[in-house]
């Protein structure tokens, strides 16, 4: 039985704001994307017995090849989404947006999250990413109706990444380039990725770093047993490792006009990371010679998706964290239809934000970053 998310909840509150969702997951199927693949990958994928959805999550929930299932042992369902196992459709995306009170959405590939860790064969990633970009352009994205896209960047292969940027340069439906932070080795501040950032900066295309990697029982070290452990740790580690790499290697100094955002790790990890990095930098500044200010000041130049917002924390603590990051750097993100998605009401209900700040977080900051 699916969760009845057609049931209107707080519709008046939702209607009062224009809401842009900076992180919605399109649960594309292998079969749909394979139609747009080049050979030999088209034939290989179609014959791979991946089924429509690839590795089925409900199988993994019983015999876990990760630390457990996304839907918390059957507790979590979605009415207007394929979640967890059917392929998505464009119609259902619109239903899902309406059901949670979102007016415009930025879709990212669901399957690329898993592919980012595939470092042994980067042709597979780039083949998928190219096909995904074409599939979404042709069949799903619709900027006039508020359905925008983020193009997955197979950053292990810089040439393929540049080809994808060439392809989307004149396509209004793509408003950002998406880098999955899990598994990126070397980390994303490495100079090998410079040409990608330079191209994004030239195109005035936002760079969106999206975390991943939770649920892997060998996240950093082997032996974790529960999703609660790996999801809490893995998402933070994946984003933190890339934030540190980008800042220390000077990416914001090399490409000062590049808008950088990080998704899906909430906000309370940021003050801890900023203060620790600043403390270390005072002792070792010569290892980051491009920096013109404290590392934490670059971190607060980045933008952050709000989800999963730690709304159960002590309000004074959460207020301090958001104050340190800055309401002008936060963008509402739902992560819909995932198990821990947020509705816009999570932002509207923050008791310490002004009305102007709520509007900034719900839409105005995203309009600026993504040119919407």
């Amino acid at each position, binding site marked *: 039985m699916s969760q009845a998310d057609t049931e209107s909840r707080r519709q008046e509150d939702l209607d009062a704001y224009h809401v842009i969702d900076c992180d919605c997951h399109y649960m594309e199927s292998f079969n749909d994307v394979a139609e747009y693949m080049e050979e030999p990958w088209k034939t290989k994928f179609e014959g791979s017995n991946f089924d429509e959805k690839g590795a089925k999550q409900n199988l993994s929930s019983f015999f876990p090849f990760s630390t457990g299932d996304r839907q918390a042992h059957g507790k979590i369902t979605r009415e207007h989404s394929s979640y967890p196992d059917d392929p998505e459709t464009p119609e259902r995306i619109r239903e899902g947006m309406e059901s949670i009170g979102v007016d415009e959405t930025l879709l990212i590939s669901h399957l690329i999250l898993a592919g980012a860790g595939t470092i042994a064969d980067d042709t597979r990633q780039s083949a998928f990413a190219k096909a995904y970009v074409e599939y979404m352009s042709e069949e799903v994205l619709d900027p006039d109706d508020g359905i925008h896209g983020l193009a997955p960047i197979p950053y292990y292969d810089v040439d393929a990444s540049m080809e994808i940027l060439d392809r989307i340069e004149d396509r209004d439906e793509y408003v950002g380039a998406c880098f999955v932070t899990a598994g990126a080795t070397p980390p994303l501040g490495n*100079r090998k990725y410079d*040409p990608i950032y330079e191209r994004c900066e030239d195109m005035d295309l936002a760079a969106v770093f999206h975390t991943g990697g939770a649920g892997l029982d060998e996240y950093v070290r082997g032996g974790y047993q529960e999703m609660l452990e790996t999801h809490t740790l893995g998402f933070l580690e994946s984003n933190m490792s890339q934030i540190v790499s980008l800042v220390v290697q000077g990416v914001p100094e090399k490409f000062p006009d590049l808008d950088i955002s990080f998704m899906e790790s909430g906000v309370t990890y940021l003050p801890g990371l900023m203060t620790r990095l600043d403390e270390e930098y*005072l002792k*070792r*500044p*010569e290892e980051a*010679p491009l*920096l013109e200010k404290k590392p934490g000041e670059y971190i607060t130049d980045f933008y952050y998706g709000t989800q999963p917002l730690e709304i159960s924390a002590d309000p004074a603590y959460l207020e301090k964290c958001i104050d340190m990051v800055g309401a002008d750097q936060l963008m509402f993100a739902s992560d819909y239809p995932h198990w821990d998605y947020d509705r816009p009401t999570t932002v509207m209900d923050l008791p310490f934000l002004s009305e102007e700040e709520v509007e900034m977080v719900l839409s105005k900051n995203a309009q600026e970053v993504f040119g919407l």
Partner: protein
Amino acid sequence: MSDLVEVKPADEFENGDREFVDVGGVEVGVLQVEDEFYALQNYCMHDGGPVCSGKTHRKLLGEFKEPGQRVEKSYSEDECVISCPWHGWSYDIESGDHLANDDISLPTYEVVVEDGVVYVGGQKN
């Protein structure tokens, strides 16, 4: 001359030498580095370490030349640094500014050489 604190004859200094004097209740380190004299507070702004007994060295600089290439690193031709031996907090030896954050500045003092004798004068910053 009453505001000056005598250190020792200039010709008794060699590069790398440092002497410590009391200037109005503050311990000040007087150093000769690359034939120039410097005087700084010998109490690190971080945690009170004996910064003036630390290593002096040229400032390491980095320059971004072009995307995809390594940052070119080289030592400055004229800027020198002194680093506290306790935790490595490093200051420009001339200005006293912390390398990472010039909101933090180690007090520096005038150095005067008169009649072949080195004196420390008033605080500069």
